[in-house]
């Protein structure tokens, strides 16, 4: 939808800073809050507001062997997976997009240049999901930097199930991210 900005924070401090920037922005901003994160992620938020520019991503965890491009609740799952993989000798970068529109193309290219392997993770459906957009920009602008095909990990193209077991199977999580990263790094 042209003219609309979309913000999707993953951390309490980002949520506070980004809502501030969103309110000051002259354009309409859709501010998405992940319900799952409400009581799951806790953080001491400083009093000073850091006016985060809309459209700037953040490297949550540095790494050299692969990068996970993600946002929202999946940032935490990806960090979890990357931490476990660090114990096995894999060095994975995690990038929190923070803003989905406009998204931070330069940060993506820089992350690909540093790692040469990309895993895109999001909770939404696979087809026409936001991950498709991220994959496309990597292929368009960073093709020469790729040492493996771009990989996507998303929810499958099925209705969201209700039963907890089915929901767990539906939703990407740290285990699935870990498995995908191993495959990507070993490729």
């Amino acid at each position, binding site marked *: 939808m042209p003219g609309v900005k979309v913000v999707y924070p993953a951390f309490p401090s980002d949520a506070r800073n980004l809502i501030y920037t969103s309110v000051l922005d002259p354009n309409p901003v859709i501010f998405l809050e992940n319900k799952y994160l409400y009581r799951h992620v806790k953080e001491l938020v400083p009093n000073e507001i850091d006016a985060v520019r809309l459209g700037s991503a953040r490297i949550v965890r540095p790494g050299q062997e692969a990068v996970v491009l993600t946002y929202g609740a999946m940032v935490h799952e990806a960090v979890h997976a990357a931490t476990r993989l660090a114990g*096995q000798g894999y060095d994975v970068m995690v990038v929190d997009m923070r803003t989905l529109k406009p998204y931070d193309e330069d940060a993506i290219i820089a992350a690909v240049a540093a790692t040469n392997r990309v895993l895109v993770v999001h909770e939404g459906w*696979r087809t026409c999901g936001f991950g498709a957009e991220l994959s496309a920009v990597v292929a368009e602008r960073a093709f020469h930097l790729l*040492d493996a095909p771009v990989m996507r990990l998303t929810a499958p193209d099925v209705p969201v199930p209700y039963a907890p077991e089915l929901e767990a199977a539906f939703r990407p999580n740290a285990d699935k991210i870990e498995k995908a990263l191993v495959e990507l790094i*070993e*490729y």
Partner: protein
Amino acid sequence: MKTIPILMPQMGQSVAEGTIIKWRKQVGEEVAADEVLMEVESDKITVEVESPVAGRLNSILKEEGARAKVGEVVAMLETEADIHVDEPAEPPKETRSNRPHAGGDGGQVMVSVMGEDDWNGGGPRLPELTRDWLSPFVLRLAMLNNISLKELQEIRGSGQRGRVTKNDILEYLARRPLGATSIAQATGKATPTPRDVERLGQVVPMTSIRRTIADHMVQSIHTSAHVTMVHMVDMTHIVELRNRIKASFERRYGVKMSYTAVMIYVTARVLKDFPTANASVFGDNLVLRNEVNIGCAVALPDESLVVPVVKNADKHSFPEIAQELERLIKLAREKQLKRGDVEGGTFSISNFGAFGSIIGTPIIYQPQVAILGMGAIVRMPSVVNDHVVMGDRLYLSFSFDHRVIDGAQGGRFLNAIQTRTEALTEKDLGCEKL
């Protein structure tokens, strides 16, 4: 009747491979248990390898002169003996794909219902590859670094199906020798074969020992921060003493009274006061060694070099040290040194004075932290109490690892050696009644 593999044995911690010097048994020949099967040369020593069981040599997989990695099968033996044999070690896998990972399989419940492709979220996995596939990034690196397609094909890939990954090419670039580009470009080969370089001159392949020495020297230079200091020691009275008693010393103890033995004797005692010089570096740790074992570099007639070790030199009298040194040198010249004779050194001494050199800069024998070099003893004038007098002088070159030992410490160490050497008495050397 069954056939068991004969493996290249482990011959010391850092030994990765050995060269088969001689097969004592031929194919088809019977061999008794513990009978010598072959001779293997490695890391400066030669080892006789015995057959684990009685049997018949079925086949030889590595001919004389061939090299084999530790654990590699070199021959097959037929035997009646009922023994369990360890499978030969697999060559180490380059990839990490066989590592267990904690990833559970969250989607497994659904697999039987939906089929994995629908449910794995990531959708179809990455495409299957052939070894020839080169990623855009690898191609770009190859282009920027003038790596030819032929070179690319010779790089061992660690990726899926052995494809060459970014890391493989970076590692290749790191070890590609400088100046190899022209030969590589001329021949299209990563490592030039003798044929590629023979137009430049006579090609002499390095022996196993030469390669070990070469690797060790370069590794040592890269590892330690070498600093060399030189002291001049007055040997006049030692030379006089030696000239006076050398015949009776040899009669009494059966060996010559050598200056190298004198320096081993003195150094071993001084080292007790300088524990950091009698030490080894392991990673970030310095180990102050309990024993004082002094290695002594010995040049061999075939232009190679071994460093047999005089064990517990601080606890032995001078004649004992002289006898042990002569025994080791004799074994070294005959290539009969055993593993125990070359291992366990904590400090080294190199006497390069035999050919007239007076000062040198010896290279530390890793993982030790210091080495003492002896030049030739020369008669020269020097000033004593404002008078020019003639005397015998020995330059001692002390190379130490500046990571561990500082200049002041090094100077004190050399000073202690000098003082102690100049103060040596006949009693110290066990010669008082000669």
